[in-house]
């Protein structure tokens, strides 16, 4: 069994995502390699945008991969496979939280320790972050943002997607994506300022 897997791994590891989609339609076992490529990225994405627990995130992910498998013939060749699977994930997260009215308590993805550096790589945000916020503070601000703003910031700065990919994932025109990112940055700055003025007040007392 292990040998067979290794053999398949050799065949499939050099294939592009799109080639793996075509192969999966002939041989379902090829799908394991697509899942393997995306499960960690998508779990991180689910947890970042939904603030769900790891267990919830894994449940959503199961649903995402099953749904993607069922809809493989609907995969739009005009898109990157990654954009397509991120789109399915985005939709599943939304429908999951429509079903569950109460949100779970905030949890954060352990891999976000360099969150501050990533967000600071953007010139505008870097200026706001000059005050050397702690990672926890930045996370706190992100969690206070409106969902749609948090999601575009996560996609742009944490998932490192370009405008076209974000447009494909959220199914919004590129102009709308640009506006959302700009507003998200603005709200991010406002929230960081709010946070710092509160701290100053507390310090004054």
């Amino acid at each position, binding site marked *: 069994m292990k040998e067979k897997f290794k053999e398949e791994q050799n065949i499939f590891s050099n294939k592009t995502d799109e080639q793996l989609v075509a192969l999966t339609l002939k041989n379902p076992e090829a799908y*394991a390699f697509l899942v393997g490529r995306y499960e960690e990225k998508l779990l991180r994405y689910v947890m970042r945008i939904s603030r769900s627990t790891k267990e919830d995130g894994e449940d959503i992910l199961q649903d995402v991969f*099953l749904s993607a498998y069922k*809809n*493989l013939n609907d995969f739009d060749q005009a898109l990157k496979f990654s954009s397509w699977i991120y789109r399915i994930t985005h939709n599943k997260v939304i429908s999951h939280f429509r079903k569950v009215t109460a949100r779970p308590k905030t949890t954060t993805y352990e891999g976000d320790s360099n969150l501050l550096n990533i967000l600071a790589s953007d010139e505008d945000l870097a200026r706001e972050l000059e005050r050397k916020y702690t990672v926890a503070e930045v996370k706190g601000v992100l969690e206070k943002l409106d969902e749609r703003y948090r999601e575009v910031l996560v996609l742009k700065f944490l998932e490192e997607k370009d405008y076209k990919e974000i447009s494909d994932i959220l199914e919004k025109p590129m102009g*709308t994506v640009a506006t959302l990112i700009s507003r998200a940055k603005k709200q991010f700055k406002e929230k960081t300022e709010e946070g710092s003025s509160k701290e100053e007040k507390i310090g004054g007392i």
Partner: protein
Amino acid sequence: MTKISENILKTIEAQHVKPEPKWKFLVKDGLIWFMFVAALLVGALSFSVLLDIIVRHDWDIYFYLHKTFLQYVLLSLPYVWIALLALFFAVAYYDFIHIRGWYRHRVYLVVLASIFLSFGCGLIFFFAGFGKTIDRALTKNVPFYEKVKINKEQLWNHPDQGLLEGEIVEVKNENEFVLEDPSGKQWEVQDASIQMNKDVINQGENVEIIGGEKDSNDFVAKSIREADNEREDEFIKKKEATRAKKNNKAQEIEIEVQSELSQ
């Protein structure tokens, strides 16, 4: 193999999950396109009806009503058709945002192009007479359509301003009849012209009258027209047929006279 991929493969195998066939997605995409185009076409038909109603509206009675032109236009607009037109555009927009890759196009350009296309087709349909045909069919077959289409009562029920509408309940003689207005009040109507048009004045007929109020129950008519557009058309056809007959007769007489003269 990771735990998640292993679980997924197991689920796929256990539940016999298979990718949906491609044709299903093609049919779905085709249906959305079809609904988008259909919404635009129905919108175009609505626009042609709207144009037809506006063109054939009683614009001449504006001078009798003591209202500003804007007030008159607002009273005269067929709001049902305007609402329907807006509804079909909304449906077209809804369909459009479900078309695959819709967000890659400039939305305002698509919206403008759709409106332009729909209005363009609407104009063609209007000149082809589709608007008129639809309006007639609805008038004939849908109860209350005529009342909902334009609030004629608000336009015509102003005896003090020389406008009266209602149903002829009794024809008294050649130039006098009794009319019941929408409020149920009965009016003695006299035709100011020498003789009433017998094609229009029949018991049970709905008519619109321009004239003047003589006293609280008497009205003098200067012009009487059919309230029902369909019958108005039949009336025009009858008139045209009579005129054609007369012309033919005149021609026959002329030919006879000429032949007699030549003999």
